[in-house]
């Protein structure tokens, strides 16, 4: 019989839920918590700031940009390197399984382009042209002036902006009709595509319509072949892109105030020292000693509040931007100083930054934006990280393109950048704290 006892215990426990009675009477709460907002001006928490440029390259963005006198001044062209094509190689590699040794002939093709309508400025049709480049260029170093611009080799374009091209075709893209453009390749264009006199197959994409900027997210050539004895044309495997970049002119002027983003990208570095106390409200001072001592427990939220300012023409965002904050470990070796992990991540582990509408960077559209830095504020108040390690009082504001549900981020993100009012200017940054203060939890 005694062996029933543990069974009895387990069965009873398993059968019962375990809930706590919940009182809904507000008057029973034995504490008087107060939550307040504290705004700390720039001069009371910032010890220094720098705007540093030169991070990242256009070929790392993974997208192209084409512009024609956008904002009255910005020109941009996208360059693609594609797999070199010859009739023989195409047929040998792709058609032998289909057609065996029968005679095949490439008889046509199209250049397919896909755009990001949201990030493109045109509301109606624009003309886009593609052509084969005639000069060797390097995706990692090409610029408006130079085809190659590395330490050991510097070669200018024969003509600035990508040199001369052999035309492949042009077409009209209307974002109201879809996000893709198919440019038919005529016989002359096919001959250019299949030209074997150069082992490098470079393509330049131009925007012919002035005043607009387009974001190119995909490019591909589709060829069609006729097979002896077969009535229909056969689509060959697409000619894919090896690498890509874009070149633009002019370069933006030097930063005025704070700047984040662009290509190459700018970062704004801010050094901080939080005050140990802040002024309390009468309600707070009735609970605890004032001035109010800042402690990690009391800080619910800390964010750097920035005020946007209009960008120079040509570099105003055409789509939303995101500003992230990361710790900076060695500001003395800028711009080489390594950045730390995201300062603020949400419950899913995703980096939380400040999303910025493109409208915030045009005259009259100025607005405030908060970059959350709560964990950094905890560390600065505590003097160490939560794990007891040293904490850096320096943060870098940067613009990253972070893949969803991944820690993988790319800098830079866009030719456009974000501009904010700097120290001493109207709308200078400030620190926003949300604090909660309460009397101690005690027994009655």
């Amino acid at each position, binding site marked *: *019989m*005694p062996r*029933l*006892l*543990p069974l*009895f*215990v387990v069965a*009873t*426990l398993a*059968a*019962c*839920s*375990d*809930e*706590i*009675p*919940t*009182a*809904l*009477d*507000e008057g*029973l*709460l*034995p*504490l008087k*918590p107060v*939550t307040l*907002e504290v*705004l700390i001006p720039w001069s009371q928490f910032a010890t220094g700031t720098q705007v540093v440029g030169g991070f990242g390259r256009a070929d790392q963005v993974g997208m192209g940009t084409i512009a024609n006198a956008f904002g009255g001044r910005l020109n941009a062209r996208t360059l693609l390197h594609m797999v070199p094509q010859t009739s023989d190689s195409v047929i040998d590699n792709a058609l032998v399984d289909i057609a065996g040794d029968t005679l095949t002939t490439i008889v046509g093709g199209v250049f397919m382009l896909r755009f990001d309508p949201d990030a493109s400025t045109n509301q109606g049709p624009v003309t886009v042209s593609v052509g084969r480049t005639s000069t060797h260029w390097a995706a990692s170093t090409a610029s408006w002036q130079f085809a190659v611009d590395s330490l050991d080799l510097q070669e200018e374009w024969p003509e600035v902006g990508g040199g001369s091209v052999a035309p492949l075709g042009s077409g009209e893209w209307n974002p109201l009709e879809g996000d893709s453009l198919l440019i038919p390749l005529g016989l002359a264009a096919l001959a250019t595509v299949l030209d074997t006199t150069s082992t490098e197959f470079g393509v330049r994409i131009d925007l012919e319509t002035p005043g607009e900027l387009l974001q190119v997210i995909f490019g591909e050539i589709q060829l069609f072949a006729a097979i002896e004895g077969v009535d229909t044309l056969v689509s060959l495997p697409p000619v894919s892109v090896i690498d890509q970049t874009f070149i633009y002119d002019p370069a933006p002027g030097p930063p005025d105030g704070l700047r984040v983003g662009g290509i190459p990208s700018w970062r704004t570095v801010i050094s901080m020292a939080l005050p140990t106390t802040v002024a309390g409200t009468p309600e707070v001072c009735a609970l605890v000693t004032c001035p109010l001592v800042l402690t990690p*427990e*009391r*800080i*619910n*939220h800390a*964010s750097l509040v920035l005020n946007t300012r209009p960008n120079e023409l040509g570099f105003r965002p055409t789509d939303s931007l995101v500003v992230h904050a990361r710790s900076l470990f060695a500001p003395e070796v800028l711009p080489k100083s390594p950045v730390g992990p995201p300062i*603020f991540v*949400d419950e899913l582990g995703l980096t*939380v930054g400040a999303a910025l509408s493109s409208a915030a960077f045009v005259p009259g559209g100025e607005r405030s934006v*908060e970059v*959350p830095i*709560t964990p950094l504020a905890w560390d600065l108040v505590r003097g160490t990280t939560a794990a007891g390690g040293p904490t850096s009082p320096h943060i870098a504001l940067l613009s990253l393109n972070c893949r969803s549900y991944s820690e993988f981020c790319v800098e830079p993100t866009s030719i456009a950048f974000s501009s904010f009012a700097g120290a001493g200017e109207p709308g200078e940054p400030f620190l926003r704290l*949300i604090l*909660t203060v*309460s009397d*101690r*939890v*005690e*027994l*009655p």
Partner: protein
Amino acid sequence: MSPLRRPRLAGVLLLVLAMGATPMAAQSVLATWGLGVTVDPLDGRGRGLGSVGPGLFGTGVIPGDPGASLDLSVPTIVVSMQNSWLQMDQEAGSATVSGSRFPSMGLAYPVGDQGVFTVTYGGLLDQRWTIVREELVDLGAGGVGTSVTDRFVSDGGVAAARVGFARRVTPSLGVAVSVGSFTGNVARSFTRAFNFLDAGVVPAAFRSDARWGYSGVTATAGLVFDVSEIVRAGGTITWSGSLNANPAIGSEGDARAYDMPLEFRGGISGTLGAGISAVLSASYADWSGAWVSLGGEAAAGPALSLGAGLEWTSLSVFGRPFPIRFGWRRAELPFRLDAEDPVESTLAGGFGLQLAGAGNIPLAQIDLGLEQGTRSAGSVSEDFWRSTVSLRLAGF
């Protein structure tokens, strides 16, 4: 009786004691005031009879009533478990909760003809409750404010571990004493969580907490008086020193000491006829001192409990005794809410099922007490069902 079984049973008892050290109950929202809700460490039989004190016919192992084990002739262990289903009605809304707990457990061991030695563990005060409040706070963004949810959680309670001894001094008079220590702990925490959508940002929740451990001394003396086998009367008086609440290491709370009341319990059982008996019982304790010792407001006072019940022992099932019971109970709770005295009233019923026995000695028995009751004080009212199941094993 196999000697090998004793260590196994001792292990089981230790397991039960360890689990019982963490109260698991959904007792009452009235626990939010004062030191919590008082817990009578009764077994399933006592619950079914509406009893609040000693003086029951038969034997038992009941914390706070060392005389209950007076006539035990074989080693006995009793474990009681309790389930509660609670419907709460408050001004701000209604809620239903349920939970389980160990109200009592004990071991009795007869020492020849000298008497019966007991070790018991039982709850005294249940301090498990939560307060939830929704509020709007102004974070400077204008508008109607940011909604926050305040949650204050108290998790724990006070129990007492006792050792006792009961002995008959004459055929009709028995005496018993027990001494013990308060034990248990309580953790209190406050959390304010922000509504992200209202705030526009992602504020972290504010949290403040503290934890205390309980200690103190308690002692009980009891008498049992039998008139033939027709009437049994019993009474206990329990004295306790201060209930000390000391903050746990690393906890920021202040220490507290509460004067515990002198508690009187008494009961009388009488045979009404063949196999039918009646029970009347009462208890009284003035908790004013617990509050006065803190210099606080008069938020605690006298608590009088009354109980009455009937037990019919003539029934049997499969040749085994199958007593059935009915009872009524009214108990004042010592800590006030909204300046009104909270009262708990219950109707009870139950039965016992002897699984094994030797002569008049139950070797294995289950007792079930089922109560349906109400509690009310001020704007709060509660309807509850409570079941208490006791397993009694003897002769191991």
